[in-house]
């Protein structure tokens, strides 16, 4: 399924800087050290709003997944389905990403994964996870 073109928004640019450097950069609470997704705006754990950008290790495991199918067109053909996943980073937060390099039949909760990035021809990179090892 086509992704479209990604642009920066001025608020989450460090994530895309990290991606260009092949590092997974997310948020970490300066007050309680809890890790959060890059679009977090405050820490639900301690109520703090001092979220720093920090590089996560990139290891994760699969929580759940879905294969999103596009609507068939008038000619009956449909776009390539998209393999979506919720993954749990080693640091604790869940992220939403595409899975790559694995077929749906090979998936199970707990599958070890590693962060990677998709490189479209135009625009910013996007987040992928691939089976680890």
């Amino acid at each position, binding site marked *: 399924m086509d992704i479209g*073109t990604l*642009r*920066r928004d001025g608020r989450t640019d460090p994530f895309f800087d990290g991606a260009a450097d092949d590092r997974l950069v997310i948020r970490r609470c300066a007050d309680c050290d809890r890790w959060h997704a890059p679009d977090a705006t405050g820490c639900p754990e301690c109520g703090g709003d001092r979220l720093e950008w920090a590089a996560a290790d990139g290891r994760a495991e699969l929580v759940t997944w879905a294969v999103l*199918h596009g609507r*068939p067109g008038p000619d009956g053909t449909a776009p390539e389905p*998209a393999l*979506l996943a*919720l993954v749990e980073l080693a640091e604790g937060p869940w992220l*939403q990403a595409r899975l790559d390099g694995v077929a749906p039949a090979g998936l199970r*909760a707990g599958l070890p994964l590693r962060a990677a990035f998709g490189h479209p021809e135009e625009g910013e990179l996007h987040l992928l996870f691939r089976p680890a090892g």
Partner: protein
Amino acid sequence: MTDGAAIAGLGMTELGKVYGRSPRRLAADAVRLAAADAGLALSDLDGLLVSHGLGGSPGIELAGALGLRDLRLLSQMNAFGATAGAMVAHAATAVLSGQATAVACVFADAPLRPRQPSGAAYDRGAREYHGYGGMTAALGFRSVNAFYALAARRHMERYGTTSEQFGAVAVATRRWAAMNPLAQLRDPITLDDHQNSRWVAEPLHLLDCCLVSNGAIAVVVTGADRARDLARPPVHLWGWGQGHPGHRQERGSEFGLTTGATISGPIAMKMAGITPGDVDVCQLYDCYTYTVLVSLEDYGFCAKGEGGAFAASGALGPGGALSTNTGGGQLSGYYMWGMTPLSEAVIQARGEAGERQVPARDVVLVSGNGGILDHHSTLILSPHPRT
């Protein structure tokens, strides 16, 4: 003051592919129908609660459109799919505390347009996306279908729930719909039909997903004593509750495994003085077949993780142990958010469901579910006053 609250009137416009009427116009029609059903004049209403909707809410301007004057209660409410239950509970509380005496609660929506596939009504597509949130949307995390598929898959992984068990819900619900003249989809389906329907978002087939409908539904809540003197059999409100679990997206989350019914169910049942075993009929919010399974578990009709086996046993359909979604629900009937289960509950409690009327209707449970299992409401209804 009054000894209880009751639903005294029900108003339903045409539902489904109803074009050319705005949500406000539809809402006004439903409120007029509900008041007339109760045997009330519009001028007898002194409260109006208006639900948020996706296709644009009627807004509290609806009061002006209806010419309602000197209202004592007027608000727009939004708890997504839990709104109908929340509105009725708010109306009942207002009636019980003497703030108002006759409160209309209305939902209206018109997301369908002529010559547009129904799925497109709730799809917000774009070609260019911005920032991290834009990235996840671009990857496909903007589709409600995708989020419910993620939730359903988690339940399957944890408890061994199967697509065929989801299918049992779809088949049972369609059997009820076949007996409801108001239902949009009434042709019988088999488990094979379910399994062969196209994928929307695996593990969800097309026949796991609800309809999209235009239309409006309203109810009128009054004191129980007053309802007894009105035109229709009162449907008494025995209990209500809300639950908003606030699942965080992080380690330890119960996303996909539980709903807010774990909170709202016990509150509503305690208020009503009942246990799950006392419930005769369930009207559960069925945006997806999976939502029914997980709600049944959270209300305690079966053990956690056994919702699939419970549905596959035939419990939910006509003649089953727990008649559920007897009007065809949102899967086969009509999709009016929480007003779908509520309207069918009123019809059954009144004993006016015709061919699909269940024999035992002393206690009717109604659920509302909103967000991705983030918001839940419960109502317990009965044709009898709470003793």
